[in-house]
């Protein structure tokens, strides 16, 4: 029993570290959608097939994530884009880039030759805040210790309720 207790303590100790759920993050840099796929906890999801679909129903662009889980694809028009990745073992994730996040220089289907200065600044800002947004996104999905403790408590609570119901039924 002591060994079991020790194992349980060790399990709890490791709990807040990480676990797996596929996540996807993307943002806009110039005319490109740039992003990465990763597992909760930070491991990169490499070689996962994905696609980008425009809101206008044009044929989706396919891609495969690189060794660092990243991808970069140029888009042709300013509209909502849905990016989705799905690994073969059934993990999937989705991310939506809104039309207003894309540079105004992108008209319906036409690419402008040179970007005006303001959109270059916008692109530079987007590039710089991307790591921050990514970090926030990853932080939000991190497994936290109090969630783990709460979950354990809830499990015992659930089965406690069931035991109470059973005992009442037997008593009456």
């Amino acid at each position, binding site marked *: 029993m002591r060994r079991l207790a020790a194992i349980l303590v060790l399990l709890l100790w490791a709990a807040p570290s990480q676990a797996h759920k596929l996540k996807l993050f993307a943002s806009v840099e110039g005319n490109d959608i740039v992003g990465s796929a990763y597992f909760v906890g930070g491991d990169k999801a490499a070689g996962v097939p994905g696609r980008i679909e425009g809101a206008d129903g044009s044929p989706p662009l396919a891609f495969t994530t690189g060794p660092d889980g990243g991808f970069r694809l140029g888009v042709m028009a300013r509209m909502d884009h849905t990016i989705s990745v799905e690994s073969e073992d059934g993990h999937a994730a989705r991310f939506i880039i809104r039309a207003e996040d894309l540079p105004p220089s992108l008209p319906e289907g036409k690419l402008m030759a040179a970007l005006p200065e303001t959109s270059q600044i916008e692109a530079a800002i987007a590039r710089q805040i991307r790591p921050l947004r990514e970090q926030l996104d990853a932080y939000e999905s991190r497994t936290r210790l109090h969630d783990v403790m709460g*979950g354990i408590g809830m499990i015992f609570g659930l089965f406690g309720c069931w035991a109470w119901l059973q005992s009442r039924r037997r008593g009456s």
Partner: protein
Amino acid sequence: MAHIPDGVLSGPVLVAGGILAAVGVARGLKELEPERIPKVAMLSAVMFVASLIHLPAGPASVHLLLNGMAGIMLGWAAFPALLAALLLQAVLFGFGGLLVLGVNTVNMAAPAVLAGLIFRRLAKDASTRRIAMIAALCSGGAVLLTGVMVAGSLAASGREFEAAARLVVLSHLPVMGIEAVFASAAIGLLARVKPEALA
């Protein structure tokens, strides 16, 4: 690996999984005497926590399941125990979807119950050392069967069985090994010091 998210499986597979899970949970609760409820709760909590221990394995990311050990110790009560653990994993951490809860529960609990039945039959009147060995085989086998069932659920929803099965089963070979060692240590210990816990 049993954390299939929503939106991957097809409708009929989800419904079938839901019905099978409901039957399993009902059977598990019916056979559950009040004295055994704390044991079920404890193993449910252990499985809930075990899935948070993450091992990088090639392109995927895997974690311990411990469903074989739960099946050996709980029998049919593994169904409600796993349902509670999976429900909270989905709600708190977003591991796996809510609509696929039935399929995920069956994929983990059916191998658990099977491992329990086989264990009970083989371990009857066996020596402690033999019991530990049988426990290792049963829990490793439960992980393997869960992998095959996950691939099967994907295939029944129109995905390719072979690619999914290869990826899921290969990435879980280390998990099978770890769980076999873990289960043989834990069950072997219980058989020696507290054999009534296995009944």
